[in-house]
């Protein structure tokens, strides 16, 4: 009898700071348990391999092409200063920047257009933007090879309008074209999200206060859509910098870029430390870019 009476009294004891803290701890523990599979996955397949790459970048290549982990040194990083490597670095950076800028110029007006359509049109056009993802990236690059080939449709078109043959396949132009094509959706989506979220009465207010269309874009629309611009730029810049498939297929291996260089170091030259050091530098550049984005106050990746 007493037990029956005691039980509710125990449940209804008054709240204490200790009780609150314990409750808080329990909540945190539950959150951690839920995230555990993701943590385990990240540690196993991301942090550990990353550590191995960084470790190898300080290792030494032996004469027979194997890698000696004894005797840490900066030899591999010193090699990055050599003209042949730094040229590749600069060229890759330049190509990534050009790709990003072209994507920006193409995507901004399109995103603006998209954000001002009716919801039905908007969704339909967003599907169009995503359609390329339904087929394999490699296949799409080969498709461009056909399009840009010497007797391909692109060349036939320019011949038809009397501009002569186009021979841009296996040039940097073709690589940029392929990269822009491949990464444009990554620019459009965050940009569209940012513009769509914008308060349109601010645009009206700007016009009402005497700003022309261009002044409004420059002083109101652009600053307010900046998070989307930065997010999109990083999403395009990072994969462009390390791109491998597109430069290989459309560039024909004529001009080496970072991605190809890394592959060559690991597979052909068997110089793992150099491959690892280039990878590490690339990663640092990307990390800096991402940090710049978060510093700029963006939160939507």
């Amino acid at each position: 009898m007493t037990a029956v009476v005691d039980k509710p009294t125990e449940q209804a004891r008054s709240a204490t700071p200790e009780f609150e803290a314990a409750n808080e701890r329990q909540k945190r523990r539950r959150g951690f348990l839920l995230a555990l599979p993701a943590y385990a996955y990240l540690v196993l397949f991301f942090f550990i391999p990353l550590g191995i790459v960084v470790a190898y970048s300080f290792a030494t290549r032996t004469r027979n092409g194997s890698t000696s982990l004894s005797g840490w040194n900066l030899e591999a990083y010193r090699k990055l200063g050599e003209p042949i490597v730094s040229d590749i670095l600069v060229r890759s950076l330049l190509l990534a920047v050009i790709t990003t800028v072209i994507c920006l110029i193409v995507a901004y007006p399109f995103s603006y257009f998209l954000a001002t359509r009716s919801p039905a049109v908007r969704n339909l056009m967003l599907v169009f933007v995503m359609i390329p993802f339904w087929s394999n990236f490699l296949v799409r690059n080969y498709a461009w090879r056909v399009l840009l080939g010497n007797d391909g449709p692109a060349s036939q078109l320019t011949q038809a309008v009397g501009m002569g043959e186009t021979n841009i396949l296996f040039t940097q132009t073709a690589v940029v074209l392929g990269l822009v094509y491949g990464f444009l959706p990554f620019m459009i989506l965050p940009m569209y999200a940012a513009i769509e979220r914008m308060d349109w009465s601010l645009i009206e207010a700007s016009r009402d206060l005497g700003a022309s269309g261009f002044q409004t874009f420059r002083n109101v629309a652009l600053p307010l859509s900046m998070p989307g611009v930065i997010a999109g730029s990083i999403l395009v810049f990072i994969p462009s910098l390390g791109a491998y498939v597109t430069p290989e297929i459309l560039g024909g291996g004529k001009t080496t870029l970072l991605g190809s260089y890394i592959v060559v170091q690991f597979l052909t030259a068997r110089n793992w430390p150099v491959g690892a050091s280039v990878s590490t530098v690339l990663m640092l550049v990307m990390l800096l870019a991402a940090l710049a984005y978060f510093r700029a106050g963006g939160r939507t990746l």
Partner: protein
Amino acid sequence: MGEGLSDQSLADYAGVSAVAIEGVTKRFGDVVAVDNINLDIADGEFFALLGPSGCGKTTTLRMIAGLEFPTSGSLRIFGDEVGTLPPDKRPVNTVFQNYALFPHMNVLDNVSFGLRMKGVEKKSAATQAREMIELVRLDGMEKRKPSQLSGGQQQRVALARALVNKPKVLLLDEPLGALDLKLRQDMQHELKSLQRELGVSFVFVTHDQEEALTMSDRIAVMHDGKLLQVGTAEELYDQPVNRFVADFVGQTNLIDATVIDDEMIALANGTKIKAPNPYPGGTKVAMSLRPESISIGAPEDVPEEFRPTSLHGVVQEMNYLGHSHVYTVGVDWMPLEVRTNATPTSIKYEPGTEVAIWWDRRSDWVVPDEGYSS
């Protein structure tokens, strides 16, 4: 008579409306938002566009601002046709409903925005902006971002941002809608005195009839895209043109009636009431009777001169509002609202009491039984 001619042109000049709207219609697809309205707003006038949501008042304001273009009709600001001019080419500025302050700029940059866009040099723009910020009593807040301001402060920034451009007409779209009651009342006074000080026309959109009555020199009542009546607060309150205006502006009892002749009407139960009216016999009308115009008392107490304008009924409900008693009196076919001043000496009539109600002949008002009634 050469002088007569110049007098005439002087009169013409003085008579140029700040805003002249002539036969303006605005369609959105099949929807007629504004239906052929004519409106003249004088220079220096505090003018309210009043109506329920969806009545076209905001669309009208936006057409004056240039944020919408009329489908047809003519729209002039100080005599100049502006129908298709973009907003930045018009001498008007707007205070938006949600203020639309630029979130990425501080108060000073927000206020000086208009001047900067017009090419005013930075220092002078800042000086003028500071003066305006002072005028709306926000000095010291120049460096704050809009998100760090209260609703009332944001409202003042929006005002300063518009007024710094010295607009010929200031447009305000429900500017007080987001503020709480006390702040709203303060801002009403402030807006009114600001308008008097600047002498600029304010065109003010609101759905709050009390706000419109308190603040405006003249009010235009809109409903379903149509302009129903334009007039001073007293005109709208005492002489509404139809059922809708009578009902929307202030509180009123609308009693269905039929015209007998130009002196008499018959109420729905057959009671004949003296009510002068301009309508032909047999016309269906409604008699508008304001709750505060009605007196209440014991049936035998009806003064002789008010006999022709009295009714008998039973008190159904009594509510005490501090300054007044509000009775619901059931006359045999409908309940009427009666409001009396509550003083310590006033007699209270409990529910169930048989009473008489009467009113002065001048305080009833007959309106045609047309249009919407809520």
